[in-house]
């Protein structure tokens, strides 16, 4: 286990998360582990542990958390929210953490590439002349890309 220096932690990080949309429940956690026991991702990827992610956020391990790869593994199945007695709403919380990570430019390259595609083409797969030609042969109308809305969103 890597050594953590207390001086490197960011004590205000928990407030940042708690004031981000979706992260309001962070400080209500009792660490009862019901979320981890219910999580389907935890069963295959051991380093993904909702309870530990909450602890890391509360301890202020901003760098470790935002630069980690595991925060992007959540499948948004809401099992954790379902069993949580304290209404922490972990799925929303992990969205908040992911949003903060994107702001800090910590999002994984794959996701950033997808973002670029969305911005450019308005969809995850580029539609070229080749596809439209094939479609017209089948008697289907051509697809026109509308990236403008996504540009304004992103």
């Amino acid at each position, binding site marked *: 286990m890597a050594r953590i220096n207390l001086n490197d932690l960011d004590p205000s990080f928990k407030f940042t998360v708690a004031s981000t949309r979706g992260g309001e429940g962070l400080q*209500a956690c*009792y*660490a*009862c*582990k*019901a*979320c*981890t*026991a*219910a999580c389907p991702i*935890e*069963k295959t990827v*051991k380093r993904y*542990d909702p*309870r530990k992610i909450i602890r890391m956020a509360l301890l202020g391990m901003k760098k470790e958390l935002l630069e980690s790869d595991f925060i992007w593994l959540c499948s948004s199945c809401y*099992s954790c929210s*379902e*069993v*949580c*007695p*304290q*209404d922490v709403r972990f799925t929303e919380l992990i969205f908040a953490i992911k949003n903060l990570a994107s702001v800090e430019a910590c999002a994984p390259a794959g996701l950033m590439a997808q973002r670029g595609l969305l911005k450019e083409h308005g969809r995850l797969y580029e539609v070229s002349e080749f596809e439209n030609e094939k479609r017209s042969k089948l008697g289907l109308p051509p697809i026109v890309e509308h990236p403008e809305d996504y540009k304004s969103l992103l």
Partner: protein
Amino acid sequence: MKKVAVIGSGISGLSLAHELGEAGVNSILIETLPLPGGNTARFSCKATDSCQRCGACLVQDYVSKICRNDRVELLLNCEILDSRQTAKGYELLLHKNPAFIDHLSCSKCGICKKVCPAPKAILVDPFTGSFFINYSECLLSQNMQCSACEQVCPEQAINLELQPIDENLEVDAVALATGFEAFDPAQKPRFGYGRVPGVLSALDLEEMFRNGRFENLQENDRPSSIAFIQCVGSRDSKIGRNYCSRVCCGYAMRSARLLKFKFPEIKVSMFYMDIQTFDRDFENRIDKASQEVNLIRAIPSEIRSGPSGKPEITYYGVNDQVIQEEFDLVSLSVGMGPATTSLAGILGTIEPRADFYGSNSFNPNNPAFKGAFLTGCALGPKTIQESIDDSVHVASQIEFYLNKQQSGVEVE
């Protein structure tokens, strides 16, 4: 002579009436059920080789004290239909249901309970073994014709022809000792109560202790493993109960130690999120318990029927992995909720609300609550000993109030 109505004959009501009697104040103890003792009468003694100070035996003491006390009148089977505040105090409209069973001729044979079609209509006093008819559960109260118990009684001790009486009662002060209602674990479906065989609430376990169900079992039929799950219906903001019930860690640990004492071969596990008890002996008890009981800091995500039909608990274990483990019995440590009976709400000035009475708007200094007092679990979760302490305090408050009233000085 000043008179106080004490509503509810649980441990708080009993001890309050007793304390008032000791102080020379007459009181009327009103109980809807045919038995005194309330919730506390359902608990069993948890003594191992030494007393564990659970307090369950105190109820019996107080019931016998009350029966000997001339200043306390015990009204069983009695409901309050209406109430209003008067210049003097309160006026209550009582609905007295008759005691259908004549205890002088009853031989306690129990045939009536066997033939009764309603499950909770005939109750047995846990201390004396006497039988009582709980009129609110009886089919007669639902305008149905039934006289099964009357016909089978070999002593002809049952008379269902008796009619209820309505009566007005004027009192100088009212004390609500309406207590609590245990959380219904079926409201948390993921724990499988009522669905998975072998999942019990802690009250079911108390009943098993009291009836000696564990001793009666053959050695092979006895459960070999039992799990206690804490905080079912407490510290849970999803169901609006974001408070600690104060007693569950204590009673679960006492039950665990009692089981371990009687049957050392049973494997006992306790799942908790925080252990919170408010008892001065607690540190000793947790030391002893941690040697005998497997304490696991994890709340299970789910309890379902395992491959062999026993309850299977899914939890996140100490070694950072999800564990699915089967237990023979699971006891859900249910928390306390406010009493939902309409009884307390009938007092016009004290409105019924979903929360405990004392936690929000009850204020003894408010003129709207003049002459009304609250004691015990009506104010919030309390142990048996704390309820008695509370009643001693409230008894002195009531005495003070009545003396002020008598001397004509306005109570602030």
